[in-house]
């Protein structure tokens, strides 16, 4: 059962196979929780949303998705954004203010608030830098590096072209690099 592809497992789950549910849960509970936590920045909310995702999964009555993993991340992403919108925590200003070219992004990175703490652990630094990214770039980075989705899968999940995914990823990396470098310089001072 562990070796079966996601789509087969999901088909079995839809027919009431509990074992298929266990395998899907073992495969995806932790990665999805991590994804939700990084998207929302709230552990309790991430737990609630994870439960909601799996309830949607086990009560789903539509056609079997052709690509389960991309479909699952699409559902998860949509639920997360709905929840964030409901809580009014999505930073629309941040998402829209960085839609320029790389140089502009780098300028934004240079203008990070002085309150960024010096001497914090790398983990905190990365987390903070990720949070500074525009939403569409941040989710692309999360899906690529933490969820290890292929670029094609990310394009499906985020409903954009492959070229846009590449562009977003590249811009996000450049921006992240700028942010991390800046903090390193601060540390050295």
């Amino acid at each position, binding site marked *: 059962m562990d070796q079966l592809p996601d789509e087969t497992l999901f088909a079995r*789950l*839809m*027919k*009431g*196979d*509990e074992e298929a*549910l*266990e395998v899907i*849960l073992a495969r995806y*509970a*932790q990665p999805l*929780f*991590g*994804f939700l*936590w*990084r998207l929302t920045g709230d*552990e309790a909310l991430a*737990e609630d949303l*994870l*439960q909601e995702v*799996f*309830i949607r999964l*086990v*009560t789903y*009555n*539509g*056609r*079997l998705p052709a690509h389960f993993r991309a479909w699952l991340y699409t559902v998860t992403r949509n639920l997360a954004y709905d929840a964030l919108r409901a809580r009014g925590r999505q930073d629309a200003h941040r998402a829209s203010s960085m839609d320029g*070219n*790389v140089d502009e992004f780098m300028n934004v990175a240079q203008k990070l608030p002085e309150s960024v703490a010096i001497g914090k652990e*790398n*983990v905190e630094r*990365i*987390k903070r830098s*990720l949070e500074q990214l525009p939403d569409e770039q941040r989710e692309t*980075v999360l899906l*690529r*590096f*933490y969820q290890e989705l292929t670029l094609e899968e990310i394009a499906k999940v985020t409903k954009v072209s492959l*070229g846009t995914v*590449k*562009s977003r*990823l*590249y*811009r996000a*990396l450049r921006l*992240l*690099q700028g942010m*991390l470098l800046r903090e390193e310089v601060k540390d050295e001072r």
Partner: protein
Amino acid sequence: MNDKIDIESEGSSELEGWEQEMAKILKKSEAPQLPPEKIEALLATLKPMVTARREEPDLNPPEPNSRWRIGEFLRLVRDQASLFEPPFWMAMGFILLCNLALLMSDRLGALISMLILVLPLFGGIAMIYSLHAIRGGLWEIEQVSAAGIHRIFTARLLLMFGLQLFLALPLLLYYGSQSGGWALARMAVAWLAPTVALSGITLFLFSRWGEWPSVAIAVLVWGSLILFGAKRASFIGFAEMILTHIVFNPLLPLLGALGLAIGLIFGALGMQKLTSRSSIWS
């Protein structure tokens, strides 16, 4: 724009190297682990829901057959007739009787009025009638049927056109037998173009605003055109005026093509709008 292309191409070429390095850095930030007891609790919540699925009928919509077999399609067309209730067949029968009476009385003016003025409007209203059942939940059932929504929709349109042809054909043939093939062709265009145009427009209106507004607009617009034409000619000479246009107007083929194009474009837009509701399942 060039800037964007440069960025994208630069991004594509450097992505591999970037990924290697950044992945290592980013991996340093690990998400908190979901405690095993929480996964167990989630599993316990979900299991009864999964077990309950065994008792459910299979609600997963079957995939429509990819091949269109003629016999099956014709049966589908025939089955669409079951949607029409007695009042529709009574209206059809009434028009048919009128047509027969016109043929027997040999009244050319009334025959033309029926063919050019009445039948297109009946076609538009019948189009809405054939679709009104979908408002009562039938659409959702059709969406999950094995035939597929596009095939059902096409079958319904074909049936409607067949019924229109059934009503118009005797009149056209009679007119053709009296006036010759060339006149028959022009008369066919004069009947077909407004029929298709009005059907397409009503389908479009129906897809946006439902049955009553679309019927009202169709009747209003078509009725206004008729009244406008009748006002220009004396009412008795109206049919003769139409006939003159059909026989002599050099723009008839162009107007006919325009009517067909309008009908097909609006019909396609309406069909697209209606069938796109199938996305609720995805």
